[in-house]
């Protein structure tokens, strides 16, 4: 465990109890006891906190891996098109809600979202097989071509999602879809935790396996291959790792942007800047960020709760602009 991991682990340990106490109903530490307080904690706030940690950790780790893979500090896990594919799957579940037996209803959205993410991963793997064999034959392309393929997938999924929304069967479904797309953690239960946590943990473990290979990419694709890195294996690890973390996140919370982009930048100054040193601390820092943001939106005195996805984009977009300015000054 490096210094950055320690810093963000401590921060997370401080944030968790604070987040449990914060909400519409403030809980003073002295109030711990039987009755409503315990119920609120165990059935509302604890699963929500665990879910925030899970999703933040997944997005943070995915962002660190993605920036390492693309050798670009402005890369985001969304670039692979997996999140839009998962969202497409989720939106499709609103369409089929009438056809799904009631017993299955609570599971249909997350499962369809995971299916969308899985389809996205399969398509990427198909494209990847092509691009990496081209690269070995010296045709070039490689990572750049693959990224463009991911963007293509993202815009296709986005267009299909928009189509599904405009053709929504009824106004109620429409508003439900739009609300859901702006990610949130409101009213989540242990069921969502049971779906997302194991998948996210597996995804982070897969990304950790890719860590040293990502380091090798620091000097470019050819240098990495000369150090024994197999591009196809690295790409497979990355697609699976990002598919699991991002797919699981979208399945239970909708689209939450900018975490994957922003978090590695917060972590980088505390590390040696190689991708391998970023993945675990970025998972911890992502957990801190999402947990803190979700606690804040919960206590804001608004008529309806501010959606977490909107809140993070409101913070993330200006931060992205600031990054661009810093890059122009050559300080990144």
């Amino acid at each position, binding site marked *: 465990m490096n210094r950055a991991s320690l810093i963000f682990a401590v921060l997370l340990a401080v944030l968790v109890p604070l987040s449990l106490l914060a909400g519409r109903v403030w809980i003073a530490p002295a109030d711990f006891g039987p009755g409503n307080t315990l119920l609120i904690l165990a059935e509302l706030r604890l699963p929500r906190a665990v879910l925030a940690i899970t999703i933040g950790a997944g997005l943070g780790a995915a962002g660190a891996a993605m920036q390492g893979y693309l*050798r*670009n500090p402005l890369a985001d896990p969304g670039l692979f098109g997996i999140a839009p594919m998962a969202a497409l799957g989720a939106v499709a579940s609103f369409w089929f809600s009438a056809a799904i037996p009631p017993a299955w209803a609570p599971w249909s959205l997350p499962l369809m979202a995971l299916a969308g993410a899985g389809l996205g991963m399969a398509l990427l793997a198909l494209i990847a097989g092509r691009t990496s064999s081209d690269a*070995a*034959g*010296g*045709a*070039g392309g490689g990572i750049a071509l693959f990224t463009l393929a991911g963007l293509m997938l993202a815009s296709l999924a986005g267009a299909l999602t928009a189509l599904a929304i405009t053709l929504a069967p009824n106004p109620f479904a429409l508003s439900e879809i739009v609300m859901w797309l702006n990610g949130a953690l409101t009213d989540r239960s242990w069921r969502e935790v049971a779906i997302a946590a194991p998948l996210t943990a597996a995804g982070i473990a897969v990304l950790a396996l890719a860590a*040293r290979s990502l*380091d*090798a*990419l*620091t*000097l*470019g694709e*050819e*240098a990495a*291959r*000369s*150090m*024994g*890195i*197999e591009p196809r294996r690295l790409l497979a690890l990355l697609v699976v790792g990002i598919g699991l973390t991002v797919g699981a996140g979208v399945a239970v919370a909708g689209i939450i942007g900018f975490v994957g982009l922003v978090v590695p930048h917060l972590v980088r100054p505390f590390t*040696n*800047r*190689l*991708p391998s040193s970023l993945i675990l601390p970025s998972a911890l820092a992502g957990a801190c960020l999402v947990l803190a943001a979700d606690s804040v939106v919960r206590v804001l005195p608004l008529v309806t709760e501010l959606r977490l996805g909107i809140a993070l984009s409101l913070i993330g977009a200006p931060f992205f602009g600031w990054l661009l300015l810093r890059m122009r000054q050559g300080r990144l």
Partner: protein
Amino acid sequence: MLAADNLALMRGGREVVTGLSAALKPGTITAIVGPNGAGKSSLLLGLAGLLAPASGSVTLDGEILARLHPRVRAQSIGYLPQAPDIAWDVAVEALVALGRLPWRDRGTAAIEAALVALDLEPLRHRPVSQLSGGERARVLLARVLAGEPRWILADEPLAALDLAHQLSLIAHLKACARPENGAAQGVVVVLHDLGLAMNHADRVLVMKDGHLIADGPPNIALAPQVIAQGWGVRARWLGDPGAQALIVGEEPEQADGG
């Protein structure tokens, strides 16, 4: 022995190296030269096992390179790409340590040795963005040396350096090929500057259009008639062996050859 046997390489659907055979020995510096587009960098990639042969083969001590596990190959052959951009602003020491990736160990002793060999100890904590061009070239070579390869294949390692830094990097490469103690490494460099090849290489491979047009000690492989054939210019060498300079000009044929 690193040997190409009737090697053909394809890049972007085009044959860039054709029927090329050459057996390289450790303990020597081999320079690959040729006009632009001759296939020098492709040949180097092929010898490094990074570009699979379209036909023919590359062998390392008799074993077909393409059949070696990538990590085993990487432990034997170090490859230095031409002027790579370094994606992350890491410290010198961390960058050099990347050279241990093929071994999957910490390799502290090898990293230290590489830092010492290239006079980088005072710079070990400096971020790579704050290095001069010469320091950067040394750091990149140190990364290769940290992997303790038996072969060092470098694509134009001297291209962006001034005279003094060129000489110092050549001295480091010579130390690899002819070490005071330890095993001699094989050094293969793609060079643009024929003078550097003439004065410092033990053997020169001259390429044109994917073929070898000359192969031998520099004074033979870089004879004026070879330069005329390869580059289409008249040229002659001036100066003493080890410090010769190429004079290029449109002189009459009979004045050639010195």
